[in-house]
């Protein structure tokens, strides 16, 4: 008994050791970024390791106004948010049918979606620009939302369907016997049970959209529609970069994404216990 207890303690200790180790490594870049956001350009160019002499906030104010960050935040929220909602809605529906039903062409459709995981974004920039131009969509938010949704669907469907596949069929069967329709089953049984995976794909979708640069660079021609990554890139000139403002801007850009993560992550671990069935 005693040795078991010790082993347990050792296990706990090891767990904490590993986790704290990771936490430290992961925190440092954020710490470094925030630290430098409080420094003047000169302080950074002379030494980017030193601690800031004071909690100077001027970089934050300057960054906020210099490239209209408020507007870009709003744009990014609209584009990323809508794209996530559409992707997860369409993706979960498709994943439901792909994972829980048999039908002709299922394998082909599923493989086709997986194929999309492999398409490199830069290879599609020119074709997508030309398509958007023909559709008259260049320089609209829709021109970003559409490719964001399309490029995130494979990942979304892939993760959701592999998750849905592993759900037990028992509850569903009971519901069918009770006469529930398929959409009803999807909505009130499958979706709640899939909650952890839904949270996961929402986070991943949001992260990708929030940081996406190439499509936004090519498809948006109006300062008023610029998303955050575009605005944040404006702190670099041809020959010099305003690192202080850049760090301040990047620090601010991190806040919403952490907030979204915290929000979703709760759902992620609530999962089963909060769902329709208890394990």
């Amino acid at each position: 008994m005693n040795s078991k207890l010790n082993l347990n303690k050792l296990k706990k200790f090891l767990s904490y050791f590993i986790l704290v180790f990771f936490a430290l490594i992961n925190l440092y870049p954020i710490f470094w970024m925030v630290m430098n956001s409080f420094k003047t350009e000169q302080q950074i160019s002379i030494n980017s390791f030193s601690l800031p002499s004071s909690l100077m906030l001027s970089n934050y104010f300057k960054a906020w106004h210099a490239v209209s960050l408020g507007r870009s935040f709003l744009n990014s929220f609209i584009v990323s948010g809508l794209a996530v909602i559409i992707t997860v809605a369409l993706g979960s529906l498709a994943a439901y049918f792909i994972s829980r039903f048999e039908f002709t062409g299922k394998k082909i459709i599923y493989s086709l979606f997986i194929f999309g995981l492999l398409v490199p974004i830069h290879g599609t920039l020119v074709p997508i620009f030309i398509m958007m131009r023909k559709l008259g969509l260049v320089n609209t938010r829709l021109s970003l939302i559409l490719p964001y949704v399309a490029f995130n669907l494979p990942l979304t469907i892939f993760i959701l369907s592999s998750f849905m596949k592993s759900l037990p069929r028992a509850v569903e069967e009971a519901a069918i016997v009770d006469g529930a329709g398929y959409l009803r089953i999807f909505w009130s049984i499958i979706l709640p049970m899939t909650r952890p995976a839904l949270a996961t794909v929402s986070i991943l979708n949001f992260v990708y959209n929030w940081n996406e640069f190439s499509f936004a660079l090519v498809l948006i021609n109006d300062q008023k529609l610029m998303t955050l990554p575009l605005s944040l890139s404006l702190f670099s000139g041809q020959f010099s970069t305003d690192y202080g403002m850049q760090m301040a801007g990047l620090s601010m850009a991190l806040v919403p994404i952490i907030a979204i993560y915290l929000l979703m992550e709760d759902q992620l671990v609530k999962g089963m216990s909060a769902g329709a069935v208890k394990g």
Partner: protein
Amino acid sequence: MNNIKNNFIIMMIFALIVVCSGAVLAEDTVELKMWHAWTGQDAFAKEVLLPKIEEFQKNNPNIKLKIQVIPNDNYRTKLRTQAAGGQIPDIMQTYPGSEVQPLVEAGMLMPLDDIINYWTDDLIAKETLKAYTFNNKVYAIPAKVNYTHFAFYNKDMLQEAGYDKWPATYQEFKKMADKLKENDIVPISLGNKAKWVLQSVYFSTIADRVAGADFLDKVLAGEKKFTDPEFIKALNIIKELADNDYFNKDANSLNDMEMRQAFYQKRAAIFFGGAWDIGGVIENAKEQNMNVGIATFPSIVGAKSPQALSGVTGSAFSIRAGLSEAQQAAAFKFLKFFYSEETYTDLLRTGSFVPAQVPLPDDISPQFQSVINLVNEHQIAPVYDAVLPLDLIQIINNGLQSLTAGQMTAEELAQQMQDNL
């Protein structure tokens, strides 16, 4: 969250104003879409070019400039993608030589024949516009001359090594560098991660000097070859600097900020940079009480153009072909205003070199005056990446990295360049 709400309200009001004013002004306003890469960090842009654009808009309420700023690193990707899709803005910043050439060849730009005399009569020598001239037609007007090669050195460190002057010859330079190494000081701080630094800052000047300022033109015309001994000799100087450990060991993985940081932290005695570094160096040196000297590469035995200094014109605007008459008139008006004598004089004041022959203002700083004197001792010679075809730029940029990393010999690189010509 409040901010977002406020911003939303502001945006709604703004949209309303735009819609209303649009309706009123629609009839006689001309709209021009403009792209440029001046994000406002560089002094010349912040203090001269951007205010100039604003001033133009204020003076010409009937010409509406719809401006998009795209940072330099991404400007080409955006322009090339949209051009491939058949769409470019009405006025756009273009880069010299092989970068603007495909746009010209595709007939997407308008030659400035009708108004070129405004500049060539007495402001800018025609020769200076060479990088934007194709078939005798000029397609852009530049605002600046970017000299790409200066040596910035810490006078105190050199003194400690026994040199109270910048060495006159390359031989002497090497002795000095060895001495610095003995004192545990990195002789030259280099950050060549972006790959263009060795080519643009170092090699262009060294090669122009060793092989002659007209060497590159002759190679492109087929009269000379990259495999000729003078070119290989120039490559070998770069290789020698690396082989002798004059650079910091991690030169190929540092960026330019890290490169300068090593200099300011007194870990290195020298760094080579362009005219764009002058302002920052003068400022930081003052702050740090550093004694900084500015020079160019020491003289090399047997050099064909010993006074060559690489430089290229830049910050140029081109106009799209196929504008309406009213748009064209507006665009011309803008160019004339933007590239005026006054602009060039203002640029000189911020420490930029200009392609125009304008009198030096009296109030330029003594430091910049001394750099001007230094430049006047030299003759401008081409920067390689403004003249070479695009794929050769890739080859030489990567090749110089390979050369310094010991992955390639000078002969191999020269051969590869010749093969791809």
